[in-house]
Structure formats: C-alpha cells, structure tokens
C-alpha cells in the first residue's frame, strides 16, 4: 500500500540507490503532540486555581505549590483532593512488606519521581539531588555498587518510598529560588548616610487564577510556556545610620560657613541626613508588577549530538521600589538615592529567577532522561546524529540517523535530514482517519468508553530495529546456557535426544552441558501486510540457531558432542518500559533500552529446511538427521527458554484489544496507551493517555475520588 504524503511536503525524488517507499537508514523520529501540552496546561491551571500565593524571605522564594495543595486537602477534609492525585506519600512507620499501603506511591508525580530516580541510579549519580537522611544516602551509595539493572531493586520498598517522597516534595512540588536578600551596607551623599537592606521579602500572589496562559508548540523546535503571575510584591527592610562623614560635616570651619552663608545655619544642626534618620523609615515597598514568565524549550544537541530539551527562561517584570512613608520634599534626594539603589537590585531579580528556573528545569529534564535519540545500547548512540525541527502549533519532531562514517554506502549528502519524509509519513499516520488505524479517540473500560489523547510518538525504521537486534546478538544477548532442570534444561534435551535415537545413552545429564545461540544475526521484519489484516506487525527470524550438547568443559576436551542446526521464527513486538512482576510497566526504567523487542513464545515456527545435525565421538555417532523430526518439540522449548526474558505475553492489554494496542495500567481505569502501526518499512509507536483522568474537573476532585481513579491504597 502507499501512504499519503503530507500535502505540505513534496514527494521525495528517488535516491540513486532506488529507495522510495521505505527509509534506507537506521532512523528514528520523535514527535510531540500539542494535545500533551494542552492537557498539562489544563492540569497546571486547575492546580493554580487552588493556590493563593507563594512567599519568600531570608533569601529563598518557595514555590511550594504541592505543600499548599496538601494543606488544602487536609483543611477541606479531603474534599479538595487534587493533591492525592499527584502525590501519595509514605506513612510512618513504613513496612517493607511488598505492597504494604504504608509505602504510598502510585500517584502521578510519584511515577515521575521513581522514573527519574531510577535513571539517576543508572547514571551513577552519587546522590539523588535532594536532601535525604544519612541512612537513605548510605542506602543510595550502597545501591550504586550493584550492577546498573539491580540498583533500584537493591533498595528496600521503604527506602524507595523515602527517596521518592523526597524527590517529589523537594524537586517537583517545591521549587526554591534563592536570591541575595541583603543589600549593603552602602554609603551615599559622600558618606553622610549609611544604609542597608537587611531582608527582602516577597509575596507572589496567585489569587486562585489560571497562571499558565500559553503552553504550546509555537514555532520550529520550540515549545513555549507562558506564565503570567497576577502580582508580585514585597518589602525591603531598611536600616539607616549616620555615615562616616556625618559628624565631620557637622564640624565645618569658618571658610565653609562663609561659603554656605545662611545654608551653614540650615545644615549645621540638622542636615537632611539627620532628618532622614529621624524619620526612621523601616522598609521600602518593592513591586514587580505582574511578571511574565516565558519558558522556551527546544531540542538542542550536546557534545555527543544527543538532543536534550533545553529550556530558556525569561522573566519580564516592571519593577518599582518606593518608600511608603511620607517623606518631605527636602529628603526626596536621599530617598531617591536609596530607592534607586534598591531598584537597581530588584531589576536584576527577574533575571536571577529566570536563571535558576532554567537551571532547575534543565536538571529535571536530565534526571528524567528526556533525551533523543532514546537511550538505547551505548553502541547505538555512536551511530546517531540528531536534528530537530517543528511546525507552529501542531507538533514538534526530531529525527536521528546513522553516522555516515558507519554506513560507507551512504555519502553524507544523501543522508535524510530533519525535514525528512519519515516525519511527514509519521504525520500522515497520525492524521489518517482509517487504515492504518488512527490513534484511538476512546478506550473501553468495563464496557464504558473513556477518552483517549495522543501525546507523542516515535517513528522507528526497520533498519533501526535490525540494527538493534544485531547489536543484541553481537553482545551475546541470545546466548542461552541450558539450565539443569526444567522443560528447557540439559536433562530435558538429553532425554529428548535419547528418545529420538533408540539405543543412545548420553549418561548422567549433570555431566553434560548445552547451549543454544544464533550463529548469524537474527532479523526483524515488519509485516505490514499481516498488520493490515489485524495480525502480527513484526516477525523475528533466527535463521541459523546452533544447539550443542557436550560432556566437554573448560580444560577437559569433549569425548562427545552433538550439534544441531535449525531455524526458528516467531512474531515480534515492540514495547516501551521494563518488565516488572510478569508485566511490562512503561513507567519503569529499562536499564538497557527505552524500548525492547519481545517475542511471541506461543507460536514459534521451526524451519525444517535448514535443520541438520553433526556429531563428534563414537558414543553419539548414532545421532543423525533422522532424529530431527522427533526433536521439534524440544527445539521449540529451547527457543522459548532462549527468549524467556522478553516475552510478548508480558505486554499488557485489555480483552478485545488488537495486537497493535498496548495498555499500560496507570491505576484504576487509566492507561498509557501505545498504538503500533507499520507502514513503508517503519514502525510507528504512538503514545497517549486514556481513561477517566481525562476530562476530569480536578478542582472538584476529592481525595477519595483521586485515590479511586488511580486505585491507590492508603
């Protein structure tokens, strides 16, 4: 079939190598949908509609929005329960019994925090970047000693809960902006007056308004968030005292008085500084007006050509400083000098806030590993270059490609760029109303249709998937040493061979060793035709599997060895996340890959045409090709054992869901939905949210309802 190309994009001309309907390289594209931003904006505004103000003093502005929602939840006896949807803190004493309610967790921010913490552990961060107890820090340090995949599980459930709570409460739910709260001491008027501001305090008024006025893709490679705060004002506490020349000024000589004339009398006893001091002005009023915060986030490459969401924050505020006290006109000069010095400080404040917000946001993005290309195997990263592009108010996309140096056949001028058709094909899939199926607008939950929103997606070329499976093969990922017991054990294999070859006696299975591994790289093919017919969308071929059974060990030559050669194939599936308790959890961090290939172990097909056997030693010489038909079952069982770590059956779905839909439980009747389509040699993974959370008015959400929505305990 041929998919429509976006009308805004001209048909591509065939390249010299003749590629047209498929992408020739190992490519991956990423796309962010406007809908995601709309929903985040809506949730943010619903939260801000419950907030009154933030305050800052002693040099720290605390945007403690989550604390306030928690306080609101408590003061309303749970009737205003948005907090419960966002955070489910652990309770004391915490029990390490698996699944104990005291561990809390499972709310939206908890999921984000756990994801970030796992990635920090994977990255070998020496601490989680938040303030934790010495005991938790020790547990964290100890976990770092484990292999990367074992670090998070090495922590007890309560340690995980403690870290999660700290991350949510300190990094996500409370943004602390520090600022220098003192100015001075400074002297003015040739040293006549000394003053200093001892503490500048702020009040950021939210006034239960919706502060996020824009959160949208506003241009090429730009997601813009605009926050308009109703009012920010504060006080600068002022101290004044006579300066070093004050007393000298009072003791002038005769020439000076002759010069000043009557002014000498005026100034001698009570120079204006004295008046100003006498007024004892305690504070200045600081007004930042209605600050306008603009956060532009774009994908920018680091030194390794990996794209990271990079925020650029600007804060615009009309700052003004004034003395609220009544000041005589004569003192206007002094007041003006102090006001202008404080104002020049407050003029710096918006930039100071912007810089820190920018740094904290960038840190959060890094913690969450929001990078592109995705964190696949380190080998894959070496092949990836990235560019980003976008179109206003629709979507943001990025694309990676092979390193031209890696693929010598493809001169760099032929490499597909960010404006490549892959992305536009992806758009076509996203917007196509029918075959291949568009992202569902509704999902069924207990017979009730719930809304479903598309948030983002990845376009992955078949070449990329083949490169991935090739890398797995090269690292020995498929090498399967048969265990001692079980249906895929050495004993089971020995028994099957003895059964297939009458008179053969292999001896004690405990003295035998066996291994199954592909001798050539497996292949992954996207099966577009089958997918359109509602069947599998990918097939994995293990063309040349080698199975050997021997009594040899290291240092002891084998006296007998049987080597079987056969091929196998099965349906393959792609899924994001990591296996957890017999199910793939998209919120869990896979230490090796963001997405992985999973194999349908219920329908393994063996290829009889490539099967053969070879032997060494007289004891096994009777094993010939004639035995092969009787060994099909054990071959199948062993392939199943080889791929047991990546079972397609772990991919969660609801009854009736097609194979192209994956539903990752998010709690209650809510799921992260992943739809997989294949077309033109590419796999398109579309990710979104479906369920009762969407369209909910969170301002009316009680804590009990929130916990019910996410099926939270406690």
């Amino acid at each position, binding site marked *: 079939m041929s998919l429509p190309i976006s009308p805004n994009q001209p048909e591509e001309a065939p390249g010299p190598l003749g590629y047209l309907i498929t992408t020739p390289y190992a490519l991956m594209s990423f796309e962010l949908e406007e809908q995601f931003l709309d929903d985040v904006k809506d949730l943010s505004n619903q939260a801000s509609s419950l907030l009154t103000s933030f305050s800052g003093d002693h040099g720290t502005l605390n945007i403690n929005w989550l604390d306030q929602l928690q306080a609101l939840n408590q003061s309303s006896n749970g009737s205003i329960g948005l907090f419960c949807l966002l955070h489910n803190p652990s309770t004391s004493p915490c029990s390490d019994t698996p699944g104990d309610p005291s561990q809390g967790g499972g709310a939206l921010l908890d999921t984000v925090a756990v994801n970030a913490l796992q990635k920090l552990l994977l990255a070998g961060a020496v601490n989680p970047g938040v303030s934790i107890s010495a005991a938790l820090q020790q547990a964290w340090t100890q976990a770092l000693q484990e292999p990367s995949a074992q670090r998070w599980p090495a922590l007890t459930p309560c340690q995980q809960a403690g870290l999660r709570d700290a991350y949510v409460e300190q990094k996500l739910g409370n943004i602390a902006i520090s600022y220098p709260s003192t100015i001075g001491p400074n002297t*003015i*008027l*040739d*040293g*006549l007056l000394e003053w200093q501001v001892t503490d500048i305090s702020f009040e950021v008024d939210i006034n239960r308004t919706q502060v996020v006025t824009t959160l949208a893709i506003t241009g090429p490679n730009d997601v813009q968030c605009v926050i308009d705060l109703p009012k920010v004002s504060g006080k600068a506490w002022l101290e004044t005292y*006579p*300066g070093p*020349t*004050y*007393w*000298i*000024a*009072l*003791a*002038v*000589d*005769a*020439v*000076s*008085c*002759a*010069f*000043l*004339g*009557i*002014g*000498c*009398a*005026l*100034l*001698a*006893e*009570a*120079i*204006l*500084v*004295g*008046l100003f001091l*006498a*007024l*004892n*002005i*305690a504070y200045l009023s600081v007004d930042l007006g209605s600050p306008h915060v603009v956060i532009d986030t774009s994908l920018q490459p680091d030194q390794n050509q990996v794209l990271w969401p990079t925020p650029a924050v600007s804060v615009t505020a009309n700052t003004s400083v004034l003395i*609220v*006290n*009544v*000041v*005589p*006109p*004569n003192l206007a*000069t002094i007041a003006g000098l102090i006001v202008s010095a404080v104002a020049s400080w407050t003029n710096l404040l918006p930039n100071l806030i912007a810089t820190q917000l920018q740094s904290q946001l960038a840190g959060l993005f890094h913690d969450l590993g929001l990078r592109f290309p995705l964190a696949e195997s380190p080998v894959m990263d070496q092949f990836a270059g990235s560019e980003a592009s976008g179109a206003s108010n629709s979507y943001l996309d990025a694309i990676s490609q092979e390193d031209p140096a890696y693929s010598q056949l493809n001169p760099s001028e032929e490499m597909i760029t960010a404006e490549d058709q892959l992305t536009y094909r992806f758009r076509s899939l996203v917007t196509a109303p029918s075959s291949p199926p568009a992202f569902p607008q509704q999902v069924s939950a207990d017979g009730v249709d719930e809304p479903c929103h598309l948030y983002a997606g990845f376009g992955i070329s078949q070449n990329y998937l083949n490169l991935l499976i090739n890398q797995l093969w090269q690292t020995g990922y498929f090498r399967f040493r048969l265990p001692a017991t079980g249906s895929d054990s050495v004993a089971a294999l020995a028994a099957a061979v003895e059964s297939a070859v009458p008179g053969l006696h292999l001896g004690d299975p405990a003295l035998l060793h066996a291994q199954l591994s592909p001798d050539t790289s497996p292949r992954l093919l996207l099966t577009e035709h089958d997918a359109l017919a509602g069947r599998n969308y990918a097939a994995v071929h293990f063309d040349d599997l080698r199975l050997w059974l021997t009594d040899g060990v290291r240092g002891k030559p084998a006296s007998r060895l049987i080597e079987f050669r056969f091929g196998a194939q099965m349906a393959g599936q792609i899924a994001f996340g990591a296996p957890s308790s017999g199910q793939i959890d998209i919120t869990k961090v896979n230490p090796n890959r963001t997405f992985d290939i999973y194999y349908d172990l219920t329908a393994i097909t063996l290829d009889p045409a490539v099967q053969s056997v070879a032997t060494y030693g007289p004891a096994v010489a009777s094993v010939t090709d004639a035995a092969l038909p009787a060994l099909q079952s054990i071959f199948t069982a062993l392939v199943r054992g080889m791929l047991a770590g990546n079972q397609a059956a772990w991919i969660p779905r609801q009854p009736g869901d097609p194979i192209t839909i994956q539903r990752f439980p998010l709690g209650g009747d809510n799921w992260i939905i992943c739809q997989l389509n294949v077309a033109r040699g590419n796999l398109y993974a579309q990710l979104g949210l479906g369920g009762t959370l969407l369209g909910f008015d969170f301002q009316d959400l009680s804590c009990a309802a929130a916990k019910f929505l996410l099926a939270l305990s406690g």
Partner: protein
Amino acid sequence: MRLDIGRARALGLAGPRLAMLDQAHAADTSVAVVHGDGRVRLSSIGSGVFGSDYVHIRDETQEGFLYVCPSLRAFLQLPSPPLPEAVTATAAVRARAAEFTVQAVDASDQERVAGRVCQAVTLTAAVPFAVRWRLWLCGDVDLRPFAQAAAAVLTDAPPPVADLVTGFGMPLRGALSFGDPAAFPEPASAFQLDELVLRVVTDAEFNGPDGYTDLRAASGQSP
C-alpha cells in the same frame, strides 16, 4: 544667594555637606530669616540649593530645632546631634583653621543694599587657602542690636569672626572669592539682603503651626 558648588567641591570646601545641596539648582536661592530674642526662623522662598518648602526654627533656649514642612502640614522636632568627642576636637581645630584678617576698608566702595548705605570691607585668610571675603556692612544705629545675631546666622561663623565682622556693622551683602582674583574674577559664593523689615515679632512665629502633625506619625512611624 548663589553658590558655585562645583568650585567649592574642587577646593574640598565644606566637604560632604555639599552633597546635601541641590546642585542642579543654578538660579539664586532665597531664604527668609526672622530674628527674635534668641530665636531664628528660616524659611525657604521657592526652591533653592537647600531645598524647598520648609521652615527651620532655632531656639537658643531649647535644645534642638524644629523642622516644619508646609506642604505636608507636618513638623519634626530634633535634638541637636551631640558631636562625639573626637569630632569636637577636630571641629575646634578646623574652626581655627581660617583666621580672617581685615585686609582693607575700601572707603570708596559704598553701595546701597536694601535702601541702606553699606561700606565694603575685605577680609582675607591664607589658611587653608587664599580667601577673599568682601562684605558690605551697614553701620546704621537702628541695626546695631541685631548685627551680631544677623552675622551669626548669615555666616554661622565662630564668635571671633562674627565679632570681627560686626565691628564694622551689620552685613547686608557679601561675596567670597578663592585664589587669584585675576584667574577667578567671579565670587564662589555671594549673598545679598533683598529686603530688611524691622518689626515686632510674635511667639507664634517661632512655634509649630497649629494643625500640623508630627512627621514621624505622618510617615507611619511612631513619634
């Protein structure tokens, strides 16, 4: 009254006190002075280098002074700041630093100031730098009782200087020049009495006006 503040600053004259002056004010500064028994009431006329819209009342019988702000209808009573001992010693030294001597009485230089004939007198001092202080003094008998007080207010000079000045009469006009007259022909500071009124004053003129509030209270601070 007119002051060349820039020149005074360049000479290091009056020190930090110059910072209190409105240096942007280029025109003359006018001040009204009312003398009573041991009391003086100074008030600004329009704006000037000393500011505007204020009244400054000194009463020798009381400590401190009263600052009155008509525009705010508020007053502020302040004690005279006690000078630290070290500063007092310094002040004494500085006060002695300039010793004026009468260089010449120029009988040919007579002018009428505020309708009265004045005789020019030139005083000079060599320390801390060359100073020429030319004063036009009126020796009218009716002014003699006020000469000392007027000279003290006009110059706030130490008593020896005030005595020296008032020995010739009451100053109605003055000009202070620094350095070589050829190089700096214009005086750095000059004052002139525009109008002289002899009348009976009342106590009310030296009291805080009725209905005025304490500036500390008006500015939101406790008095």
